[in-house]
């Protein structure tokens, strides 16, 4: 799944002709980071399952798609369109921010990168583009998993134009989600230290685990 997204966004990236960006390096960094994602245990992974996840990302996506199915069925049943949309977008925003904070925090606040990538001949622009590409692919998978069922059900009930509109509002909600997460990190880092951030992430992880069980 992520290789498909990577190929898609990478093809788009090729059309931009960015200056001072080595596309081969961008692809290598982004694909390696996605491989690390696949192998990282999600924070909500049950402790009883001691063995290494074969593809942790796929498992997370499956769980989210399943939950999306329930939400989708709910809006299918709800008679009020406005209410259904409010619930759906609130749910999306909530899931997005929670996942960004719990699972993606070690990507956003990665320090081992500097030791590994900075001594290599990689420009800071290349690194920035590679990181952005990685985050976009990651979020693409996540949003797809959360919204696929509601999107299909909504299109069946209200028609294709509404379905396309939902696609647009989904992208906007995602943007807000990223924005809120960054503000949150910014605020916490501004007023406290790194240890505190890790504690707060810990609280969120406990909450998410309870929520998902």
């Amino acid at each position, binding site marked *: 799944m992520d290789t498909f997204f990577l190929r898609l966004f990478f093809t788009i990236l090729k059309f931009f002709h960015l200056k001072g960006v080595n596309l081969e390096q961008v692809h290598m960094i982004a694909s390696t980071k996605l491989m690390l994602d696949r192998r990282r245990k999600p924070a909500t992974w049950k402790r009883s399952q001691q063995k290494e996840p074969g593809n942790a990302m796929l498992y997370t996506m499956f769980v989210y798609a399943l939950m999306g199915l329930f939400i989708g069925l709910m809006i299918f049943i709800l008679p009020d369109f406005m209410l259904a949309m409010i619930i759906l977008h609130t749910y999306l925003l909530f899931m997005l921010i929670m996942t960004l904070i719990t699972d993606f925090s070690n990507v956003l606040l990665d320090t*081992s990168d500097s*030791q590994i990538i900075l001594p290599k*001949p990689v420009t800071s622009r290349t690194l920035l583009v590679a990181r952005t590409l990685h985050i976009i692919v990651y979020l693409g998978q996540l949003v797809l998993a959360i919204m696929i069922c509601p999107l299909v059900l909504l299109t069946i009930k209200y028609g294709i134009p509404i379905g396309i509109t939902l696609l647009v509002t989904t992208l906007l909600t995602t943007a807000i989600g990223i924005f809120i997460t960054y503000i949150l990190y910014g605020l916490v880092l501004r007023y406290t230290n790194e240890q505190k951030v890790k504690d707060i992430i810990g609280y969120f992880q406990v909450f998410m685990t309870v929520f998902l069980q």
Partner: protein
Amino acid sequence: MLKGIDLQVAPGMILGYIGPNGAGKSTTIKIITGIIDEFEGEVKVMGMDVRKEALEVKKRIGYIPELAALYDSLTPVEYLKFTGKLYGLSDAVIAGKGWELLKLFDLADKAEARMNTYSKGMRQKVLLISGLMHNPEIIFLDEPLSGLDANAVILVKEMLQQLKQSGKTIFYSSHIMDVVEKISDRIVLIDQGRVIADGTIDVLREQAQQGSLESIFKSLTATDTATTNTAKEIIDVLNS
């Protein structure tokens, strides 16, 4: 951290960079290799400013970090492909050279295992390979022998000598005098961000005898009765 390090290093030699814990060894290396770019002063590698021509400099240097900084859920083959690609090597070169080197470092049978199952010494070997694979002209080593077994230590020492003979410059940082004094052509001793001695091992020993460097030298060579006494005191405290 650093309060004035002025060094000129001639090519084709092994420079031992030594100092007690927290003296600023790693910081110096991080500045030269471009990990830290906020500093005052001027650093030039092969005549190129490390901040202005960072890319050119980084292509020609190899850096082997301490503390096994690598992505440990990758296998060594994947990791070498990653670093090799960043240095602009082709797939064929990476696969060929990488495999050959893994074999020579005794890692061939574990090449498909993820590195989070690796010991510290095995990770260090992977870091050595990844830092040297693009055949750099200057090599920075930060505690390269930590965790290696006896055979690998001898192997690496011999490798460094032969690299020097083929004209490479080696910047070897460590806090253990033993190895440094055997392999280095020149030793720079630093403490608290300052260069306090600079020369061959004989010059340094002479200075140590005169007393100016005595205490710090002892803390590095550690063949002193004072350390025995400290050890004894620690054991006494533990037993009390």
